[in-house]
């Protein structure tokens, strides 16, 4: 026992491990990091940080939002550059979001992404997004809902269940897919002017191929893409009202699952997507007669709409030869050999969509 105790004490006093003692209030906590690039080809980093301090006037603790900017040849140098202007060390363990400007993403994320992967303080459960706009405008926004931009955008993406059109990808998924050399779609955000003030909105997806932004996916394409990659939790489907053809009835998606099958058919590959969607009628313009025939018709129309949306996005990216549906990865897993070049251009999509409308009382929660 004494030997074990001695060993434990020796270990605890000599090896500090990955972590160091630092009091909670003796650091500045970064909530979002914006990566930009300059015309001189240097990396520019903006960080929004939270600083706890004790107000001498009211003799109580307070929190303060501080923006830092750093510049350097590499992202690490830029981050260290930011520390030159901060009294305490910038701590990234609470970072919620990594934002790449469109310019930085187009230039290539591979020169900076490695740092986020390697650094011990950056956690993988946060999100990565592309900003379509000016980073300074984003940082200067006065967001009413949340004091910190990082927390707000994180919650915004987390809340995506409300829309089937928005795309979301965590940092972890992005890193994994990048290493698998799979083209990915990450969330795109922009600043939009609303009735009274400016707000951050999710604006479709940014298509990343080989660490470079190559395209922007529209919100309309987002729904079809989400159905194809089985990323729909909830959302809405608008279909024409069978009782009033110029009006719509809305289906709320309760649950959706997509199963994927890839097989060879002659010289071609077939990507078969079987989509099952459980929905409930959320509302109908003018009114709706709830007979079996009408329900059946709505279901069929919804199925056609989903098929159309999926085909639209698939054919678009097939034409661009960008494999955002991970067909190559499915091929490698299935056939246990390297994917043929440009596999998406030689693959046809086959859809089997089934929409079920359930009683409206089945809605259980918001998400």
């Amino acid at each position, binding site marked *: 026992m004494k030997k074990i105790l001695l060993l434990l004490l020796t270990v605890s006093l000599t090896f500090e491990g990955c972590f160091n003692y630092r009091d909670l209030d003796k650091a500045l906590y970064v909530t979002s990091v914006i990566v930009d690039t300059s015309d001189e080809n240097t990396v520019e980093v903006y960080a929004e940080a939270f600083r*706890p301090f004790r107000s001498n006037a009211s003799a109580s603790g307070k929190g303060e939002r501080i923006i830092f900017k750093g510049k350097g040849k590499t992202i690490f140098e830029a981050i260290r550059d930011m520390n030159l202007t901060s009294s305490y060390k910038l701590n990234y363990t609470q970072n919620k979001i990594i934002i790449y400007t469109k310019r930085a993403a187009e230039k290539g994320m591979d020169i900076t992404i490695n740092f986020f992967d390697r650094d011990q303080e950056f956690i993988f459960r946060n999100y990565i997004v592309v900003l379509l706009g000016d980073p300074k405008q984003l940082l200067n926004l006065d967001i009413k809902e949340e004091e910190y931009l990082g927390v707000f955008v994180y919650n915004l993406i987390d809340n995506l269940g409300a829309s089937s059109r928005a795309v979301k990808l965590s940092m972890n998924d992005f890193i994994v897919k990048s290493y698998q050399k799979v083209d990915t779609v990450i969330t795109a955000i922009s600043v939009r002017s609303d009735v009274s003030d400016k707000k951050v909105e999710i604006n479709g997806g940014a298509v990343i191929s080989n660490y470079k932004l190559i395209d922007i996916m529209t919100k309309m394409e987002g729904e079809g893409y989400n159905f194809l990659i089985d990323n729909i939790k909830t959302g809405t489907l608008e279909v024409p009202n069978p009782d009033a053809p110029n009006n719509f009835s809305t289906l709320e998606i309760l649950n959706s699952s997509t199963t994927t099958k890839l097989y060879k058919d002659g010289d071609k590959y077939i990507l078969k997507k079987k989509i099952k969607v459980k929905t409930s009628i959320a509302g109908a313009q003018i009114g709706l007669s709830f007979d079996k025939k009408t329900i059946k018709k709505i279901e069929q129309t919804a199925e056609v709409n989903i098929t159309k949306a999926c085909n639209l996005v698939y054919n678009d990216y097939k034409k661009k030869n960008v494999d955002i549906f991970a067909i190559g990865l499915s091929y490698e897993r299935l056939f246990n050999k390297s994917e043929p070049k440009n596999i998406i251009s030689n693959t046809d999509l086959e859809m089997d969509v089934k929409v079920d409308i359930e009683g409206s009382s089945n809605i259980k929660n918001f998400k």
Partner: protein
Amino acid sequence: MNEEYIEFIKNTLKGNVDFKQRTIKCSRGIINLFFIDNLCDSKFISEYVIDGFLQNYYIESEINYIKEKVLIGNSIGDVKNKEDALLHILSGDVVIVFDFIQQIIFSEAKGYVRRGIGLPITETVIKGPREGFTEAFVDNISLIRRKIKNQNLKFESMSVGTETNTMVVLAYIQGNAPESLIDRIKSEIKNNNLNYILDINYLEEKLKSKNSYFDTIGYTEKPDIAAAKLLEGRVAIIVDGTPMVITAPYFFVENFQMPDDYYVNKYYANSTRIIRMFSFIISLLASGFYVAIETHHVSLIPTNFMFRLAISRAGVPIPIVVEVLLMSFFFVVLREAGIRLPQPIGQAMSIVGALVLGDAAVGAGLASQSTLVVVAISSICSFLTPKIYGGIAFWTAVIAIFSALIGLVGFYMGVFIFLAHLSSLNSCGYPYLFPILDKSHIDFKDVIIRRNLDEISNSIFHKEGKI
């Protein structure tokens, strides 16, 4: 020879204000009575000792005649030697020395002032017996005997302490208690080098594991609990002058058992017992976990909560671990002050102290609200298991220090060392951490939850464990 006795007693006890010698002249000669004034019942001595000699005009110079015809006290015996004579006098007996009979006898005449049987202050119950032990060991024996009318219930007395000659009584039920346990305890009591015993703890320290904050010997001031322990096959020790009775063996889980667990609704008793266990875990681990998370693993705290914690700690000049230890220290100080002061002042002092000190510390920026909350919860939880309060306070600090050194890894190390320490303890040869360790000799079923009384009201020792 008897002159020698008289001289010896008088010389040894001279100068004592309470030492009395009464000389009576009877038809046969002179009789000397020696006794301690306040230890004896003076009415008893007058009526049943002195009166016997004075009323009998004819007294034979034969000791048996005196024992049978003259003295009518209930307990009369022979004095073996001079030391024995002194011991009897100091124990409240009257020693009778004749100048016409060689033998020296004593008559029991104990009659000192005793405290009445009162409520057991440290073991209050909502439902169940309310009587508690007193300082008089004879009362304590009778309290137990009243509950167990069994011919196998034995009370073996021993005189311990070379200077105090304190009466120590070993109680057990023959057939239920293992012989090895009885022998072990007897030998521990006999082979001590104590000069005096003023409290049960003098013996407790001899019996329990050394170098630990945890008591591996149980104690109670309730006769019903002592009786229950005896019926389970354990051994009880009663010491004259102490309103507590110690029981052995004693297991760690018994710290979570309260007197009325067996007298109230089973489900209610079990739920409160589980609450006590949770409270123990919280009180032991909360501070260490708080230190580890706040200093090394900030990323594990949800962001908004982390902001609140950081704001509450902003401006505190001392490190979190020192803050936690300091606040814990103040809570211990307040608790001590509350106990030592007279009850009405003590209560007010504790409440005012906690409120004022806490608020002032936060206001002055010396402590954060979150630390105060954690330390307060930890301290309050420890009050649910008062018998291990000391152990909790010590190990909480140890775990907090380990957590400060290397975060959660240190926290787990602290917990491991704590468990290793507990498992190294034994209670009179039986594993203290039962039922986690060796169960071969023990059949103790009343561990986590209280089962039906008919299932647990048995001896806790296996047959083989009794040898």
